[in-house]
């Protein structure tokens, strides 16, 4: 089937198209340069056209999410919608049920959403949820930062073996890339402890975050994976944590990149939670300036925001000790889930409020990051959903980035506490994102960062994932119409996925299966086999499940989209 999307105003930063009026053509699910006369015409004259959105970091499928849904019926009943002839019933606000997750992303014009934390032992669960989520492609990141094998090999400096292990475990878990969460800290949580800074060793294992980050980064580049290591550093959410953040990035800057598409060797995720100065919640101030300055001066790092949206939400992370800290702070119901030999995790509901000084400062810090990091290719829009706010708020975050007036108004009329202005530089930042910048931080940048050569742009050969919004960029001032920006980005005029119209006028018109997007390394099979043979006795002794039953069977990962990587290159 051939289509021509006619006369839209196109923003496609990868192809350096900045608001040109042009047609976008696609055939059999792929973008093409020309179509025949029989192509179906979709008239989008003067409307805003972008590649479909890519979310670089979201928690949307898997065991943590499920604990959240299971133990927060009070969240689930927010956002309840009956089924329609096309859609199934929806529930939930911060942790929507799987069908709603797919619909809501699709309605915002998103096509690809990364699931940011998969514990290998329960990877099947993540893939089961991906099956239940419609309409978006989902690359899952596999957790490695507190894995016993990794910690042991990192201590012994066995980089080749880590590469073999990672290569094998990406296949076993059907994962896309390497995620590191509070390295060594989540293992310490196995004993109710934590580590602080990158040189504080994990109990017993006597290995540090510095060693684990470096080892995994080296292995990642040895394999030439499409994405770099994806790091949630130590000390998340602690006042005075910004040096740890800079150290985590700086400690591996000498490691050489092995990828032609992406620029970075480390991705710093939800940076907002890692940019605090001060010594306590009393004297906390923004620590964005030194972090942004570091990122501006170094090209081996990219980051995403982790923007606080000032909502009641559910926090969830593999950073188990952080969640217990949060429980002690709020007293709200605490869930925890430690995974044998691999990781920890925790959840606590959280109410971010503009009346609260700390939450308001956090709100300012996220925006500061996006405004102080000069190159929009180095920063992506996220809310670490649902941690700093649910993903349905992305359009609101866009509206804040596009309007200095709106930000100033929020600080002036007390929608946020005075700390937002007093303890950060946000009030002095008059930079405003334009549509090209928005397309960069939500499409083009994420595509580069993840090595998604086939998406995030509208060049010939790319998959036809396209979003059209009901805004006329040539006839609209986003700096003065924040509410209209939010409304338009919340309800796509069209969301097209693999060449099929899934959303029209903000409503779901078609359901398709989501693809499990994953990486397979080729040419490393012998090394994988050798390492599996070596670790198998240990595996059998200390896991509680047979290796045969540990592996994610193909059954759970259909349909798949596999990025093949040649390790010998």
């Amino acid at each position, binding site marked *: 089937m051939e289509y021509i999307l006619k006369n839209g105003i196109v923003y496609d930063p990868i192809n350096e198209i900045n608001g040109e009026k042009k047609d976008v053509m696609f055939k059999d699910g792929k973008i093409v340069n020309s179509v025949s006369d029989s192509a179906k015409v979709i008239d989008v004259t003067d409307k805003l056209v972008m590649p479909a959105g890519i979310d670089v970091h979201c928690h949307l499928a898997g065991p943590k999410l499920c604990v959240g849904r299971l133990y927060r*019926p009070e969240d689930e009943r927010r956002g309840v919608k009956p089924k329609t002839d096309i859609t199934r019933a929806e529930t939930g606000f911060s942790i929507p049920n799987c069908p709603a997750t797919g619909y809501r992303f699709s309605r915002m014009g998103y096509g690809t959403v990364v699931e940011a934390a998969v514990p290998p032992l329960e990877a099947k669960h993540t893939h089961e949820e991906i099956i239940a989520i419609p309409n978006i492609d989902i690359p899952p990141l596999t957790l490695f930062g507190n894995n016993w094998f990794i910690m042991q090999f990192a201590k012994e400096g066995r980089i080749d073996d880590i590469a073999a292990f990672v290569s094998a475990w990406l296949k076993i878990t059907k994962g896309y890339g390497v995620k590191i969460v509070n390295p060594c800290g989540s293992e310490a949580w196995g004993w109710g402890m934590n580590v602080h800074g990158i040189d504080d060793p994990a109990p017993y294992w006597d290995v540090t975050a510095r060693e684990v980050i470096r080892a995994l980064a080296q292995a990642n580049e040895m394999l030439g994976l499409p994405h770099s290591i994806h790091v949630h550093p130590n000390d998340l959410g602690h006042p005075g944590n910004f040096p740890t953040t800079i150290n985590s990035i700086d400690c591996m800057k000498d490691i050489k990149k092995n990828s032609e598409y992406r620029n970075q060797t480390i991705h710093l995720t939800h940076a907002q939670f890692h940019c605090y100065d001060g010594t306590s919640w009393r004297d906390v101030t923004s620590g964005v300036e030194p972090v942004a300055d570091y990122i501006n001066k170094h090209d081996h790092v990219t980051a995403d925001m982790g923007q606080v949206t000032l909502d009641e939400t559910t926090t969830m992370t593999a950073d188990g000790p952080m969640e217990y800290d949060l429980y002690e702070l709020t007293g709200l*119901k605490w869930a925890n889930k430690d995974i044998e030999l691999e990781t920890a995790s925790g959840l606590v509901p959280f109410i971010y409020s503009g009346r609260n000084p700390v939450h308001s400062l956090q709100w300012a810090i996220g925006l500061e990051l996006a405004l102080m990091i000069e190159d929009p290719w180095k920063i992506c829009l996220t809310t670490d959903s649902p941690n700093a706010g649910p993903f349905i708020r992305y359009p609101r975050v866009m509206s804040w980035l596009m309007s200095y007036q709106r930000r100033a108004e929020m600080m002036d009329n007390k929608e946020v506490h005075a700390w937002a202005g007093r303890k950060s530089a946000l009030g002095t930042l008059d930079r405003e994102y334009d549509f090209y910048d928005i397309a960069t931080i939500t499409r083009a940048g994420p595509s580069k960062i993840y090595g998604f050569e086939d998406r995030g742009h509208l060049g010939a050969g790319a998959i036809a994932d396209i979003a059209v919004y009901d805004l006329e960029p040539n006839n609209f001032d986003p700096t003065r119409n924040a509410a209209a920006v939010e409304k338009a980005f919340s309800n796509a005029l069209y969301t097209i996925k693999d060449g099929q119209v899934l959303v029209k006028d903000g409503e779901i018109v078609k359901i398709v299966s989501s693809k499990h997007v994953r990486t397979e390394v080729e040419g490393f099979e012998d090394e994988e086999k050798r390492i599996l043979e070596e670790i198998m006795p240990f595996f059998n002794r200390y896991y509680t499940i047979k290796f045969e039953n540990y592996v994610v069977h193909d059954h759970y990962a259909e349909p798949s989209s596999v990025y093949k990587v040649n390790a010998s290159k």
Partner: protein
Amino acid sequence: MQANRGDVNVKQITLTPIKFSSVALEFDELIPDEIYSWSKEDFEKYEVPVGNSRFPLTDYYDIEVEGEAQSPEEVKMIIDGDAGRVKYIGGKMGAGEIIVNGDADLQAGAEMEGGSLTINGNAESYCGREMRGGEITVMGNVREYAGTSYIGEWRGMSGGKLTIHGNAGKQLADAMSGGEIHVMGNCDILAGIHMTKGFIQIDGDVTRWPGGQMKNGAIVINGRLERLLEGFELDAIVTDPEVEGRQFTGKYIKYIGDIGVNGKGTLLLNAEKNRHHL
């Protein structure tokens, strides 16, 4: 004939049961806020949710409508008979008056915001769940979870007044965070569990463990309490105490708890009837 309530004109809607359905009817749409402008014909056209279907309201009720209403405040709806299989009577209502001349089923007055609901019989579980305002009076007994929160929600009943002339079942007022409950009869276990604010008065006897895991708020028991939790610390014997702006006469034993959650809640027991705790 125009019914009259004080100086306000009242539109009186009377539903007289003619047929019993063992599958419960759901009355969440039949609240003054929705129906104040409805004519008799509107009611006769209305189909009420029953299980997975909707059936004409006239299958179950004779309907009388008298007078006019310009707003929900001017509505008086009477269910003139047993409503023991009618759920969500007065659910989310914001104004007006509903009277049930018989029993009411699950969720009577759930999430009520204003107005008044009177049940001249017993009420099933979840009566006054998450009530935010208004007044509910139950002349008979209530079963479990009266004035409670929704499962998992730590912000429960926050306003209004629930008066129970009979006895109350288990787990009255779970996670109560405001408002007032008065049980004139006896009360089963764990009244005011997880309570954070608000006021509960129980005139009859209580089996065990009022105020478990309570953080704040006040519970006054005028009858005899069997078992008290270790989480409550004796504070003082007080005479004629004032609690949350209400004056009580006589001697009371005052406890603070539940210390398991660092609670600052007040539990007052009538000293005369609870000597066994001293």
